[in-house]
């Protein structure tokens, strides 16, 4: 067990070393969300009327936080697919290390990367007027939930990477799923403006429940449309935790099995 943890941490360290050796990756993975913050704040912010004290940016930041952690799963998936293709997975599998080490190590590394990206984004948000009104503890717990959400999602990335085995393809596929998922939500615009049928989809979307949970923890009121009285709207945090557990329950065993049999 102790070895399993050290082994995983060595894999995590490898990921950090990669970032140190190719700092461009880190720069681009932080520039993109910061760019989103600025674009939405200044391009759309003026035309979306929110009635929110402090303006659109208060609603926007939780949305962008969730979107950003969701987008990292594409990097997880393509990184793993690349390792598969290069034969690196075979080498790891021929070593006397815990079978879980490679995948667990990678998900931990992704979480560390998420911490860094969230810090940079929070700073950018603060610079353009984002001011959470809740207690420090509540704000802090929002970030913890964001990291947990990112962690749960990175297991879907692991599975996708092991299943698809081609870095470029899996990155495109991940994007094709995460992009509509993050936009078909309450992240950037209130769902109340959507056609009724779409409101149901958007408001049950895990991205929306996560965004709503973060807004709550940052001290904001949420707006709901069609599902205003449903459980997810009333209890976004509980629903989000349920989603995270569900994702992990499905994808952790699937990924571990896929990894074990990755060459059979």
């Amino acid at each position: 067990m102790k070895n399993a943890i050290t082994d995983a941490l060595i894999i995590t360290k490898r990921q950090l070393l990669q970032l140190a050796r190719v700092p461009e990756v880190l720069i681009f993975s932080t520039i993109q969300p910061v760019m989103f913050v600025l674009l939405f704040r200044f391009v759309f912010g003026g035309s979306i009327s929110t009635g929110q004290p402090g303006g659109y940016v208060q609603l926007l930041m939780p949305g962008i936080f969730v979107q950003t952690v969701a987008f990292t799963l594409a990097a997880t998936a393509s990184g793993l697919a690349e390792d598969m293709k290069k034969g690196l997975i075979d080498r790891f599998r021929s070593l006397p290390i815990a079978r879980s080490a490679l995948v667990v190590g990678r998900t931990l590394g992704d979480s560390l990367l998420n911490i860094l990206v969230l810090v940079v984004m929070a700073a950018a948000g603060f610079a353009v007027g984002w001011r959470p009104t809740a207690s420090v503890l509540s704000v802090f717990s929002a970030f913890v939930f964001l990291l947990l959400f990112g962690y749960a999602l990175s297991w879907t990335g692991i599975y996708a990477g092991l299943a698809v085995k081609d870095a470029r393809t899996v990155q495109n596929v991940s994007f094709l799923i995460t992009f509509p998922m993050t936009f078909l939500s309450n992240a950037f615009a209130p769902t109340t403006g959507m056609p009724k049928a779409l409101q149901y989809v958007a408001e049950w979307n895990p991205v929306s429940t996560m965004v709503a949970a973060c807004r709550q923890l940052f001290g904001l009121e949420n707006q709901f449309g069609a599902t205003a009285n449903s459980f997810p709207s009333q209890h976004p945090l509980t629903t989000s935790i349920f989603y995270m557990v569900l994702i992990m329950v499905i994808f952790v065993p699937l990924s571990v099995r896929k990894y074990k049999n990755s060459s059979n």
Partner: protein
Amino acid sequence: MKTVIAEHLVKTYRDGEVKALDDLSLDVEEGTVLSVLGPNGAGKTTTVRILATLLKPDSGNASVAGIDVIKHPDKVRELIGLSGQYAAVDETLTGWDNLVMFGRLYHLGKAASIKRAEDLLERFSLTESARRPIKTYSGGMRRRLDLAASLIVQPKVLFLDEPTTGLDPRGRQEMWGVIEELVKGGVTLLLTTQYLEEADQLADEIAVIDHGKVIARGTSDALKSQVGGERLEVIVDAAHIAPTTAIIEKISGQKANLDEALRKISAPVSTGSLALMDVLRALDEAKIHPLDIALKRPSLDDVFMSLTGHVAEEEVKA
């Protein structure tokens, strides 16, 4: 003692559609080099992957240093080194990063991992490029680093799957030198290759495989003699083919082969250079000047071709 044993291995892919291994058996004597020789798709990589615990066979047994690879893969992993067809190292990291990481994964501890990494870099002439990312390395350097990574714990048994595929001649020579050094150090080595020359150069024994089966095995010399002894080859002008053939057949005592496109006449001879001199003398008397004349030992190419039949007919007969 047999350090590596594979018995009756069968492995099929895609629900039995593709038979990668079809009752394959082989073994490697401790401290020797066995070369598994075969064309693409013959089952070389599948064999190595099973022995290196990466793949489970559908049936059959395999053991490394007396340990069952199917029942105790974890124990086997502590004893083996594996270097695959592609350099399986992290390309964004430096050579030093990679070796230290693998050392840590072998649970050597930090200081020991660094020491071992530096020793290996030195030994494989990579010290100068140790701090550069692997993606700046040449093909030969990558393979050397990959090999170094498989030697971190001084494995008892080393599996090298096509260690020189894709390398230029210089890279190949360098790699051969490195492998020869290793063999002197006493490691038991199983090496797969498509290059007959490579098997000839490095192996104590050769197992020729095709369609998932061992179709011949023995020393390089034994396999060559299986094909036949030396052959005399003469190339002459088109006008002289008939008289030359007569002379060669007379001296050889056997029917000669004619490659019309090359105007090459060849026949097996048993007396070696004496036969060569006899033929030269006879040709001189007949006022025939050969364009080329040579005495050839059968190459492993001939062996392989004759065993697998993947060759034009005139080359097979000997």
